Structure formats: structure tokens, C-alpha cells
């Protein structure tokens, strides 16, 4: 029995090389209990070795290092269970300067200090009005 694969539309951006971000689509075979973080690892290990995301994490939704935007909502990738055939848009966490792909600099918050926002370089995904 083969279930439908999960489709991940992933934000890709390397400030050293790319003029603007792009989205790439990957198909990951689904299995029972597949987590978004595991799916990302599958993409990195099997499909695209250049994909960057933070995987130095506790794996149990504590440390927040795998925090990213999934379908427009801030989500911890290690606690997001995937359904077969699901299509997800995976983007870096909004409001933080992007280092590469899904990796942001959590050390700089744009929400708390407007001065930082002005000084910051590079691309930041802005919070949308329809986000929670």
C-alpha cells in the first residue's frame, strides 16, 4: 500500500548568490507519523544537499530552533505531523533576517526594536496581516 507523497514547497535563498528568493518543490514519501523536520532531512539527504535548515534541536518542541513558517503560520518543524498527500509551503520564520534558506538569525528580533529593523540588511519575510 503506497500513500500519496507529501509535497513541500520550500523557500530557497542564498544572499551570497541569489538576487531574489525562489521556491522549489520536493516530493517526500509519506509514512505513518512523518514529521516535517524528518521530511526536510529527507530532502537534504536524498534530493537537495544544499537545503539549509536548523536541525540542531531537541526534537520535542522545546528549543524552538526549528521554528519556521508553515502555510503562513509559525510552526516548530519537529512537532508538525504530516498527512499523506499534503502540500505545504515552508518558509523561514517571519520577522528575522535570513541567513540562508530556512535558517534565520534568531538573535535579532524585529518586533521588539524598531531601530534594529532599520539597520538590518538583507531580506526579511514580513508578517502578513492575515497571519495569526
Amino acid at each position, binding site marked *: 500500500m503506497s500513500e500519496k507523497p507529501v509535497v513541500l514547497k520550500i523557500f530557497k535563498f*542564498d*544572499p*551570497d*548568490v541569489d538576487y531574489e528568493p525562489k521556491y522549489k518543490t520536493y516530493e517526500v514519501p509519506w509514512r505513518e507519523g512523518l514529521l516535517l523536520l524528518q521530511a526536510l532531512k529527507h530532502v*537534504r*539527504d536524498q534530493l537537495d*544537499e*544544499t537545503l*539549509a535548515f536548523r*536541525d540542531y534541536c531537541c526534537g520535542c518542541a522545546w528549543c524552538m530552533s526549528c521554528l519556521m513558517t508553515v502555510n503562513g503560520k509559525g510552526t516548530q518543524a519537529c512537532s508538525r505531523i504530516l498527512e499523506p498527500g499534503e502540500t505545504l509551503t515552508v518558509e523561514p520564520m517571519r520577522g528575522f533576517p535570513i*541567513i*540562508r*534558506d530556512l*535558517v534565520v538569525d534568531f538573535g535579532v528580533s524585529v518586533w521588539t526594536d524598531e531601530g534594529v529593523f532599520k539597520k538590518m540588511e538583507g531580506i526579511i519575510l514580513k508578517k502578513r496581516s492575515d497571519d495569526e
Partner: protein
Amino acid sequence: MDSRVYAWRSPLLHGGVKINEKCETTLEGLFAAGEVTGGLHGANRMGGNALSETLVFGARAGRFAAEHAKDSTFFEADREFVDTEFQRVHTFFKDQGVHPWVIRERLGSLMCANLGVIRNREGMERALRQIEDLKGQTEDIRAPKFKRFNRLWIEALEVASMFDVAEMVVRSALFREESRGAHYREEYPETRKEWLKHTCVRKQDSKMDLTTRPVVITKLKCGHE
């Protein structure tokens, strides 16, 4: 890392960098604290005991490093060493080869199979040979060519250093001809009084020197004392 840094190696993976009470290593100006250091817990270490290594020695390392920084100047860098190292870290950028985690996994499973709960000479010597074989494959390790958040590159550098750590573990476990704490040797099942000492490994050029140091016993007494 630099061959001048000593490492304590107690039997299992409880070893670490040798520090003094000021958290200084044998390399001047390099301080260490936390689980990277060794020798604090003796032959076995219960889970959660890293607390004393992280909190107590973290605070001490910070204090003494700050004191050291106050009246010290920058060292003159060894240009030749820097150049060699620069060359080495860039050798991993290539198109063909194996991913570092392939090597890492092989190293992990050979250590697990031969230096697990029960150890014997045969297994450990086999591990040494296998580490040597794997080391030969370091040249094949590849990482994609970019420098921004390149996880594979970091992993490649780590794997290259892991060979030294693995060899230190095996050599010190072979060296200790007794069973103590989490180190169990099939040929030497009993704890021997004459082995109440620390094992110290130092990499000199490409050779590992093993020496011993006396154990300082404070409040808690040793079982066979």
C-alpha cells in the same frame, strides 16, 4: 585540533580535555568547560552530572579567561600552520565523493560494535584497524561549494577530527587492563588497585602517547581503598 592539547581519557566516553582548577588547557589562552572536559567524575558518570561541569566550571572558565585576557596580548600566529589549515578545510569542496555522514555512520557503528558495554582486546584491535581504513577515505569526503550555513562542510570537518577522538578512546581502553566503572574488559573482569589512576593521551605528531596521573580523592572514598 592542535597536538599540544592533552586529553584525559577515562574508560568509556567520559574523557575530555585536561584542565586545571582555572579551566586552563595545556595550550596557553585556551580555556575549556562543560562536557568537553574530563576527569571530574572518575570511572563512571551518572546522567545529569554534567551540571557541575557546566555551571561550576562554566563560571570559573569565564572568570579566569577574563582575568587572562586583561593582561595578555595576541599571540603571533604561526603563518605556516594557518596556511596549511586553510588548505585543509578547503579540500572538502569538490563535486565527486561521499557525504561526510556516510563515514560518520561507519565510524559510529564500528565504535559501537567494538567498544560497547563488553570490550576485549581482539575487538579493540580490530576497531583500530578499521579506524585506520576509514581514515584513508577522508580524502573522498565532499561538501558542496559554498560557505554560508554549509552544514555538510561543518560535518566534514567534524568527521575528520572524530578519527583522533575515536583512536584516543580505543588506545586508552586497550591500555587499561582492568574493569572499572563503565569500562568492562572480558579478559580483566576485576577492578585492580594499581589501576587507580587517570589515563592521559597526548597526540604527538601522528603518534598517541599514553601516560597516567594519580587520582586526587577528596570526600568520596574509592571502593577498594
